[in-house]
């Protein structure tokens, strides 16, 4: 209660409102403490997760003596005979997420253009909610549909068992469609009108405007969407695991069983004992996933900086 003695001079001057002033000051402090608490909690959680994954992941090399280059570039994954080559999984993760982005990006950008440039009203009211609905479907549903519909289809049309990188990429591309579409839509919608009007004023047609003015201007934002979509594809586990086949080999075709980092982790984590070499090797893969997430975030940051210019 010492604070009462140190009443600031301007409060004495305004003797009729000290209560309100004190109330506001209390509000400021409560708000400050509450938000600080939330931020501190977030930081603690993030730091402890990173620390946990890193310490587990590093112990594969530090404690169990697996060589780092053998882990990153080895092609043999045979935990029973102490061979921990994770290259097939790293390769599988990159190929499936890149292919998914290649399939999904053109579709998403065209959908976004249709919603914003061609039918803005109908697009905003009907199409955007539908796309958002797509984002809300749980991944196990995508995986199950992939396994029940897509895999038999691929099996009957292409050589092979239907299972493989192609099936995984297609399932992932549908999953990341809403991510890329909604980011591209937001970017297109926030484009200043005067740019387009100037283009029309010069006699450009709609397609000339879109390809010459709209797309180049919002390209960094679209790329941000693509990178975020890839990040999601990279981290998706369940749906991919159900349709990719999970053989620990680099496949020689798109229709041959392959593995991703996430699928091998989910398949083996529950069957291995904490502290065993194989379990630690799985943590090392989790660490790779975490580091890749950082890379994706970094790329998005760089792209955002370019947008501001």
């Amino acid at each position: 209660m010492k604070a009462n003695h140190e009443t600031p001079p301007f409060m004495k001057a305004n003797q009729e409102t000290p209560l309100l002033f004190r109330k506001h000051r209390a509000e400021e402090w409560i708000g400050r403490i509450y938000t600080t608490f939330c931020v501190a909690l977030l930081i603690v959680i993030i730091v402890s997760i990173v620390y946990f994954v890193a310490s587990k992941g590093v112990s594969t090399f530090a404690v169990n003596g697996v060589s780092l280059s053998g882990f990153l570039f080895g092609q043999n994954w045979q935990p029973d005979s102490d061979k921990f080559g994770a290259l097939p999984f790293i390769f599988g993760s990159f190929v499936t997420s890149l292919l998914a982005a290649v399939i999904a990006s053109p579709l998403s950008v065209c959908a976004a253009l249709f919603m914003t440039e061609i039918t803005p009203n109908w697009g905003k009211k009907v199409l955007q909610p539908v796309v958002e609905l797509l984002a809300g479907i749980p991944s196990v549903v995508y995986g199950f549909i992939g396994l029940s519909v897509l895999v038999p289809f691929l099996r009957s049309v292409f050589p092979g068992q239907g299972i493989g990188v192609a099936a995984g990429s297609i399932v992932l591309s549908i999953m990341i469609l809403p991510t890329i579409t909604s980011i591209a839509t937001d970017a297109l919608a926030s484009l200043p009108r005067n740019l387009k009007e100037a283009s029309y004023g010069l006699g450009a047609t709609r397609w000339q405007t879109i390809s010459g003015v709209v797309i180049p201007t919002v390209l960094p934002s679209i790329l941000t969407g693509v990178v975020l979509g890839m990040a999601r594809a990279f981290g998706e586990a369940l749906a991919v695991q159900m349709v990719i086949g999970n053989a620990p080999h680099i496949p020689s075709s798109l229709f041959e069983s392959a593995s991703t980092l996430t699928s091998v982790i989910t398949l083996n984590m529950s069957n291995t004992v904490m502290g065993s070499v194989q379990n630690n090797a799985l943590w090392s893969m989790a660490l790779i996933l975490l580091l890749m997430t950082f890379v994706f975030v970094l790329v998005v940051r760089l792209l955002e900086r370019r947008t501001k210019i």
Partner: protein
Amino acid sequence: MKFGKSAVLALTLAFSVSLAACGNNNNSSSGSSSSNNASGSANTASSAPASAESTLSGSIIASGSTALQPLVDQAAKKFSETNSDVSIQVQGGGSGTGLTQVSEGQVQIGNSDVFAEEKIDDAAKAAELKDHQVAVVAMAAVVNKEVGVTNLTKQQLVDIFTGKVTNWKDVGGKDQGIVIINRPSSSGTRATFEKYALGQKTEDLKGSIQEDSSGTVKKLVNETPGAIGYLAFSYIDDTVQSVQYDGVDPTADNVTSGKYPVWAYEHMYTKGDPDAATQAFLDYMVSDEVQNGDVVELGYIPVSKMTVTRDKDGNVTNK
């Protein structure tokens, strides 16, 4: 408006505080539950001569093997009906998780498809665990119905799973490529199949498929032309063709008589000697009520019916 905002703020605060409290609660309750156990065991130890079952109290957590989970779950519910002071929680997570948690003392019972010695590298830690065998799970090779094979010898199976034979016509079937639907290399089901059906570890072949759940394996074997996989007896139905092993039908009778070798114990491990409540539950698991009721009903084979026993090195002896 003003009031609304501060109310929301207060609610959020209250929520986060209660969340934090939850965390604390968990800790303290797990602490108290273990102390409960201790007091429970002390209680029952003193009143053991009276042998009144209803005096048992405590909480038991069993985690691990998803293959054993349905049986333990069902038995736990029945056990809790007669012993209302004992609460039993059954969690999945896989054999590795179960063994880790029981070894670290996080749970009272660790369920496993394999012997602890096969999973835990540290021999001293494995030796601390006490094995309770509660059921037997047998498995058979299954093939797609179109391949035209109903019997495979051990050598033929080895040739198929090591990639020496890649077409069904070489083992008496149609001219059709073989597609292997395997389990992940860490899986207990795969370990059992490799140990007792193939007699050796196999590598993952290029182009082979690995699935963790029996349902998916069954679905893929049914749909994929030329597929071969292996399933526990309880999953085998008309959609797939089960295969004789060296001419022996995969039936429960052949397993109990020791003719059909592809089977494994389902284990419930405790760290050292269990407390009274846990011991009572484990006794209940091997009682005739569960062995002849739930075990058979859920597609396992009663461990009491086995006429042979097998140790962790695979040596079979007659009972």
